[in-house]
């Protein structure tokens, strides 16, 4: 658990981060979202002390981060940044092995871990281990950047706009990849982005920042349904609210008993997918199937109810 208490960063008279307090639950993805200059990156960088806080405390599993040397603290956390930050003079394998080497792991163990991570990110170790970063595509470089951050099996992974430089299709794959990996290892992830869509898609909880202040810190449903300020409302986009709400839940949650005609839809798809299919095919209900078995139906009326502003 990361407990951030009354943390501030001031340069001269201006507070870049102003008395922010929040708790990051273990094994969740927390997304800090805000416009540029909102202080979101500074807040993230205070967690691993790349920026030293002006006041306030940060505790990780109860331990004040200032009680350990900064470099030691950082070795315990993964850190991935926009534009990947790979070392251009080192091979892919050497890049991934950076933190294990700093921690003094055995050579054979590092080599095994590098291959394991390359496989996890769907890159053939034999082919990619000894390549230079400049010989990879942007999407591959980004994956190596995340693999490097995960190399020493950290409990916490800090990510600063990790998908910012990717094109939409590669970005969607990278996001899915991250969700899978989080589920598999239970890593606590704190991710910074300026993209509310990305925040809603990835975050178990979302922290909205503006002008150094934490405006709202809540689950995505809550943020969409009850934005604390007009600014947050604007970030979400008023026209998008019902659809964002629908995109949060899977069809499984809205299945009701009954029959419907036509092609069925998977229970794992989102309600938004169901809505799109209903509108496109001109039906009022879709049969829902789970592992090839019909389990009921999802209706337009139910979706309409769920997309309405929660009371």
């Amino acid at each position: 658990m990361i407990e951030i208490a009354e943390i501030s960063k001031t340069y001269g008279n201006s507070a870049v981060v102003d008395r922010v307090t929040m708790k990051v639950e273990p094994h969740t993805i927390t997304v800090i979202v805000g416009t540029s200059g909102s202080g979101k990156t500074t807040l993230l960088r205070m967690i691993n002390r790349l920026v030293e806080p002006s006041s306030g405390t940060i505790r990780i599993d109860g331990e004040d981060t200032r009680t350990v040397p900064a470099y030691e603290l950082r070795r315990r956390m993964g850190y991935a940044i926009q534009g990947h930050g790979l070392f251009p003079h080192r091979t892919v394998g050497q890049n991934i092995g950076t933190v294990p080497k700093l921690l003094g792991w055995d050579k054979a163990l590092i080599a095994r871990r590098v291959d394991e991570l390359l496989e996890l990110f769907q890159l053939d170790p034999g082919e990619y281990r000894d390549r230079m970063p400049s010989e990879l595509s942007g999407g591959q470089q980004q994956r190596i950047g995340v693999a490097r951050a995960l190399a020493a099996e950290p409990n916490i992974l800090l990510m600063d706009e990790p998908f910012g430089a990717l094109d939409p299709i590669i970005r969607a794959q990278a996001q899915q990849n991250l969700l899978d990996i989080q589920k598999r290892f239970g890593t606590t992830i704190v991710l910074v982005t300026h993209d509310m869509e990305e925040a809603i898609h990835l975050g178990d909880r979302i922290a909205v920042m503006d002008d150094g202040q934490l405006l709202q810190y809540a689950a995505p449903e809550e943020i969409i349904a009850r934005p604390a300020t007009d600014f947050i409302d604007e970030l979400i986009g008023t026209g998008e609210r019902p659809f964002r709400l629908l995109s949060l839940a899977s069809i499984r949650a809205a299945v009701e008993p009954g029959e419907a005609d036509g092609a069925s839809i998977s229970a794992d798809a989102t309600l938004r997918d169901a809505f799109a299919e209903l509108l496109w095919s001109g039906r009022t209900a879709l049969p829902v199937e789970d592992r090839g078995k019909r389990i009921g139906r999802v209706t337009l009326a139910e979706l309409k109810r769920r997309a309405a502003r929660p009371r």
Partner: protein
Amino acid sequence: MTQGVGTALPKRTIGLDKLGVVIALILAAAWLLLPFADFKPNRILPGEPRSIFSALPPIYAAILAVGLGLSIFASLIRTSAIPRLLLGFIGVVALVLAIGVAGHYLTPEGDNLARIAPGAGFWVLVGAYALLAADSLTRLRLGPWPRLAILALVVVGICALLWSGAWDELSILKEYASRHEAFWREGQIHILLAFGSLIVACIVGIPLGIACYRSKRLRTIVLNVLNAVQTIPSIALFGLLIAPLGALAAAMPGLAAIGVSGIGVAPAMLALFLYSLLPLVANTVVGLLGVPEDANDAAMGMGMTDGQRLVAVELPLAFPVILTGIRIVLVQNIGIATIAALIGGGGFGVFVFQGIGQTAMDLVLLGAVPTVGLAFVSAVILDAFVEMTSPREAAND
């Protein structure tokens, strides 16, 4: 140009090579207007010009003349790089051998005073062929290893030429013959001055550069001071150091005992060291500033200490730029070390200044030619190293 259609297809017709036209003109002018060799009754009298036909036995002269005529024609036409490289290379070798023959041919039997020196025409012809070869080498865009191989070939060729005795009757080697002991002694001092000051400057300059990179205030002060040092003319700096070093040696006998004095090697070394600092410190700072911010940020974020980051990330990425600084310093020092002779520091400059004093141009060349050769070889080797250590993307472009 009777065919109008032919000119519309310039790629397919025989075209003129622009640089080739210049080289052909230079070759023709040097051949017809300048002396191939100079005959001097003794080493300090001005030379009498000798043309190719009067400097060489008729057979050799005829072969050389035909070769020159053909190569003037060949260099005009646009061809690919390799034939031009061969032409330039063969031209230089033929001329170098011919001037050696001229030395033997022109020296009167049993005359030890007469001197045969390469004339202006010879130098210009060699220069023109060398230009042809250098231009085609550039066009070939060779990698660092082939360039080093070619350099090694050229050096071996020159050594073989000198060792074979083909040039023994030429004036510059006669000067060498009468002072070969001094030549190697001064050569050692020259190398000691140039490389010694470079090594000391690296030991001081690179850490100073790192410190300047970390502290902006220090950077401003240090770079301004070193800039000021660099503007002092070298002769003046050598002179300026005589008084303080002399005083230092007088005040501290211990220093005098290890060779510190107002004149000699110590002030020469110190002056070269001071000149070396600016390029080294400046290139270290520029190289470190050029390290991608991302890489530094990631290195810190993953928990490298400042020292680990310096060794593992910053210095390796800045290395090609620092090496460029070392190359600048080495070539510069090999040149400036010549002036050390003026304050008794020794080096090849000794022959240059003796030669000027005696109006014996061959003696000046005995000092100047190895200096230029040394600088050239150093430049080629270090350029190749810089390219080898630079990031791959840059090398592929």
